[in-house]
């Protein structure tokens, strides 16, 4: 322990990453699962793996892999549908543990965050003491494990936490950054994905050290000025970015991966209606109204497009959200491109009680809102399929092609992130 403490001088950045977060939360609630491989992912035909236990990973299962493929690789695994509300709640508790240490917390996702602990050193102790304390508190209070990377800058801290997973702690001393970085493969650097990796391999650059010892001008020529100088800086352990504390923006939304790619604008508008309804229902049940509507369109080739529009007045009405989503979809000018996934999300949430709506002359202000609230009441009593817009009643065509089936798809995959 004393060796650690001696080494952590100047290492004021912590990267804390939950280990297999969704799976860990599920196993915590059902301890009998700890003995088997566990995979969380949408159980529909084309869902992807959101989280895999480490035992499942030994079979080659990875995040973002299609669930179908994961089933082939690891048929004995237990597959669970995601419970986003639960994960959001646990995440909130975990972030609260971080914020008790320092207000300088920059969440990257539900399950990871950067902390700048330089202000807490005098009060709590050295970075390693703080990292141990956080790991203990997360384990005791939430029953899950996390890994912490400690370094003098963000990206080294992040690589360190990846390196010590699961349930680990790794300090990269300020004097040892290059010794730590240079043997790593180039893919360890932020900004090196598959394509850049191939490009670098063609240049004979396989390790971070190879990049570090390539003239910056050559990198810039091959990768572009910005990307080239970015990689050169990272390879020498230079990362000036500060930890920017922010509360993750509250948003509510839903998305759907089609059973097979869809190019029919009518079907897409109908899916947008279903997602808008789910989103509006989520808004109303949380007592919020939202100012901005965002749509996400993923093409068959995985290109993802997002478009957003801010409304003159915040809303919790599916009719309005759908109207905006359709306008955004049409403005995206996809011209019958085949879509793999569509999503609807609303941001800029404010409590409905604080929201004000400018009424319009000659319009019944409450018609849609009242109608949708009445539907909320009915579905609470009689289930989600009791009432729905006529456009969402499956017709013969749907039954034959199975493109907009109901049932299992309405299992609450709208999610709310709430730091």
């Amino acid at each position, binding site marked *: 322990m004393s060796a650690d403490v001696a080494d952590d001088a100047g290492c004021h950045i912590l990267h804390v990453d939950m280990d297999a977060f969704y799976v860990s939360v599920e196993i915590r609630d059902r301890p009998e699962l700890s003995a088997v491989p566990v995979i969380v992912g949408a159980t529909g035909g084309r869902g992807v793996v959101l989280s895999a236990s480490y035992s499942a990973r030994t079979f080659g299962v990875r995040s973002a892999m299609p669930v179908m493929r994961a089933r082939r690789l690891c048929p004995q695994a237990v597959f669970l549908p995601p419970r986003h509300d639960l994960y959001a709640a646990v995440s909130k508790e975990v972030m609260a543990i971080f914020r008790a240490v320092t207000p300088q917390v920059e969440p990257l996702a539900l399950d990871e965050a950067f902390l700048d602990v330089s202000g807490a050193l005098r009060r709590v102790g050295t970075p390693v003491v703080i990292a141990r304390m956080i790991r203990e508190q997360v384990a005791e209070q939430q029953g899950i494990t996390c890994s912490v990377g400690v370094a003098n800058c963000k990206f080294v801290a992040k690589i360190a936490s990846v390196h010590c997973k699961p349930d680990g702690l790794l300090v990269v001393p300020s004097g040892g950054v290059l010794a730590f970085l240079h043997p790593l493969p180039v893919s360890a650097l932020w900004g090196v994905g598959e394509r850049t990796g191939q490009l670098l391999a063609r240049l004979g650059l396989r390790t971070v050290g190879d990049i570090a010892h390539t003239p910056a001008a050559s990198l810039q020529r091959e990768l572009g000025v910005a990307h080239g100088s970015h990689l050169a800086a990272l390879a020498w352990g230079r990362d000036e970015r500060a930890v920017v504390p922010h509360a993750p923006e509250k948003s509510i939304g839903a998305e759907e991966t089609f059973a097979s790619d869809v190019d029919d604008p009518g079907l897409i508008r109908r899916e947008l209606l279903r997602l808008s309804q789910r989103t509006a229902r989520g808004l109303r049940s949380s007592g919020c109204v939202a100012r901005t509507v965002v749509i996400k369109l993923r093409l068959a080739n995985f290109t993802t497009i997002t478009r957003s529009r801010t409304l003159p007045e915040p809303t919790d009405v599916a009719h309005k959200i759908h109207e905006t989503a359709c306008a955004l979809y049409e403005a995206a000018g996809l011209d019958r491109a085949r879509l793999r996934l569509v999503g609807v999300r609303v941001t800029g949430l404010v409590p409905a009680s604080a*929201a*004000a709506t400018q009424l319009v002359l000659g319009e019944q*202000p*409450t018609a849609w809102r009242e109608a949708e609230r009445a539907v909320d009441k009915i579905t609470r009593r009689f289930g989600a399929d009791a009432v729905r817009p006529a456009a969402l009643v499956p017709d013969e065509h749907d039954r034959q092609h199975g493109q907009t089936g109901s049932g299992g798809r309405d299992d609450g995959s709208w999610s709310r992130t709430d730091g």
Partner: protein
Amino acid sequence: MKFQVERDVLAEAVAWTARALPARPALPVLAGMRLQAGEDLTLSSFDYDVSAQASLPVAVEEEGDVLVSGRLLAEITRSLPPRPVEVHTDGARTILTCGSAQFSLLMLPAEDYPALPDMPPAVGTVESDVFAAAVAQVATAAGRDDTLPALTGVRIEIEADTLTLIATDRYRLAVRELRWSPAKPDLSAAVLVPGRALADTARALTAGAEVSIALALPGENGDGMIGFEGGGRRATTRLLGGEFPRYQALLPDQVNATAELPAALLSESVKRVALVAERNTPVRLSFTPGQLLLEAGTGDEAQAAETLEASYEGDDIQIAFNPQYLLDGLTVMDSDTVRISFTAPAKPAVITGKPAADQAPDYRYLLMPIRLGG
């Protein structure tokens, strides 16, 4: 061409004519202002939708017809010292001299300048200051959103000796009735005039006592046009198309509560309280017998409250408005006392002046409230 003119007379006429200069001319010559010196001096500008022409008496030594940059001429005349102005041509340039200041302006090809539209037939006259005030009262409620072009207009309804002006942006609606002198006693027509152009024109036509209104209804000759003429100035504007809301149905047919209070005190109080109302947030008005409570700001933001004495008849009511919309209506009220009538908290309030006994108010400003909370 050569003429002399008083600086103020020229500056005012040039400024008035410059209103119709297009910001982004469709043709280069449309950036020009045409100066025609004959018996008088005539200044013209035109951008196909609107035209403006001013005639002013000047001492013409030599007749002529030139086209110079309108924007530049307007800036120059506005900045001249208070001395007589002489304008003459010298080859390809127009020289403007005022005191010891001299400007040499390039000339645009006057022969390429399009002919201004003919003035349509006159249909009647109205007192210029009454008309300007009425247009200002109504144009404040016109829409600014060019995606709803019909709502950017002011509807003018002509029925015998009554003109009715109406504008709405869907959140408020202003209606003004006024008397005029039609050329034919049984004239009946309704047109939609671009609101901003109408407001500019009406405000600028108060030099003469009367404004003559000229009208070409939409038909085979195109979109239709309205013209205004008075005090040596004339302007034409192309009419708007599109469907204007059936506003009569929007006027409440019953009143459940009425408040009366001094207009100036109310506007000042709204302005004060609204200082804490951030964008889109309302001022809240609570009427009880004898008193109006104004409030703005909520929860963890800054808040303001003020009470005013007010005569009030009806059940207590709480209602919230966009403060700017409320002020827009109060500012153009032509009465020391305003009357606000309510039907219900989610129905439009009607703001009027206090009319003389058993007379209907000639100006009504309908304002939709803001609904608070969920």
